[in-house]
């Protein structure tokens, strides 16, 4: 069990947060959906585990590389 930081691949906004801290997630499950350049971009953990922390809010601007959530994988 290790903490894995989920970082944003793009610069944009947090459009929808679909999971909460404590939820179990599979590697392909979207934690949240970002919006950038008119695209809805799902954020997936690429490792299954439990969400330890969601570090952003809906409508918040995010930059590439920013930590969005932390997973206990």
């Amino acid at each position, binding site marked *: 069990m290790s903490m894995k930081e989920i970082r944003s*691949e*793009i610069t944009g906004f947090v459009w929808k947060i679909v999971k909460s801290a404590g939820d179990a997630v599979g590697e392909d499950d979207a934690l949240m959906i970002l919006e*950038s*350049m*008119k*695209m*809805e*971009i*799902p954020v997936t953990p690429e490792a299954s585990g439990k969400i330890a922390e969601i570090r952003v809010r809906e409508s918040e601007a995010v930059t590439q590389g920013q930590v969005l959530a932390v997973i206990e994988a």
Partner: protein
Amino acid sequence: MSWLPEAEEIARRRTLAEACGGPEAIEKQHQADKLTIRERIDRLMDAKSFREVGKLAGKAIYENGALKAFEPAPYVMGLGKIDGRPVAIGGEDYTIRAGTGFGSERRKGGQGGFVEDLAYEYRIPLVNLIDGTGGTVNTVKRKGYTVVPGYGQDGFERSAQLMGIVPVVSAVMGTVAGGPAGRALLAHWTIMVRGTSQIFAAGPPVVERAFGTKLHKEELGGAAVAADTAGTIENVAADEEDCFRQIRRFLSFMPTNVYEMAPVVRVDDPVDRMEEGLLSIVPRSDRQAYNMRKLISMVVDRDSAFEIQASFGKAAITTLARLDGYPVGIVASNPMTGGIVDVKAARKQSHFIELCDSFNIPLLFLVDVPGLLIGPESEAQAIMRAGIVQRYVLGQVEVPVFTLLVRKCYGVAGGSTIDRKGLNFKIAWPSAHWGSLPIEGGVKAAYRNEIANAPDPAKREAEIEAELRSLASPFRTAEAFAVEDLIDPRETRPYLCQFMEAMQPRLRTQLGPRMKAGVRP
């Protein structure tokens, strides 16, 4: 009377050479999660296939006419096989003075040298396992004079020459700077090991002297910088074993030289496999992303995809794969970042296109690109120039190009996925749409006056957009034969496989080095 004593002496010296830099130096290498050059060659090559050349080269110390001590040359090289095919291989022995040169009559390798001459003369691939820090000021004391850089038996001439003739692979397997760093990059494909390898022009001590900043070597030239951020190195291995696996994988797609066809490798995967998933993988909403790598896996031969440079320029996906056993180079948009081509993605695609064309590997574009990345940051990086270089490079290829329009195809970036010089063969999925620029942006610009003069400008703009959209159906373009075919996505694999087979006769007529003229923009 025979020559047995000498044969035994040769055997003895070979054993001495196998000691590398001695047990302590070897242990230190292992402690750093690194193998010795001899171990690396052994793991990478086909079992028992390595024939070392120049094993007796090194510094001998004699006492009373007999050999007292022997320090092997800090470079090991020779001929071996990978997947049954001959390969020239060499690498620095870091356990001997960090792999720095020892001033032999003829260089073994590392920068030109016998092993590179071997690759050239026999027209066989070259693999460099790089683990050396390059030039050192110690040389001045040893020689008693300074030398102009580029002095010596070999510069990079042979390395550059090889680039048009045989596949050259460089694996950065330790801390690599200066000359060896330069050597690493004169390759068709490069890989480094995350955590145990770094590459930079000059290392932390030199950087500290110049700038006063103290950086750890990982910060300056580890995989996060060299591969993920800068794209200096293409692939990243999790560890040395993964590195060897990837090298073998890469070479399996390449011909032995440009005069031969790349190997055809068939697996148990029917050509007429029609995946239901292809019918629904592209969302009906243009705004929603989907997994292009998954799409690729449903089309190409099972498990045949080998991605190049995954961690850099993520707006594009460049993958070697097979269709009906035939190698193909796939350039795909990545919808996860909107498929918008930024400078990094343009650079990555240009290199990959040229790599495939040089080795006579056809190209398949999987297109979902709305355009080049606009905006001040992108302009500051010369996006249009990077974008047009890709167009230029594609315009020079001699391999057949297949364009599969998956979704968006707009603008200069969209046009750069099409091979106008060749067959100009575009097939589309029903989800595809295209144009010079997307309708939303285009209407405001083209109908500005009409919209401004209308009683309800917003309504008029919406009306014009709706009208243009009704004409934008791919069916209409197909009726005009302005796109060569509109297909059921499930047919993609059998459709492509049939054309891949049919293009092989063309590939056989154009073996040899690519002759190109012109200056890249």
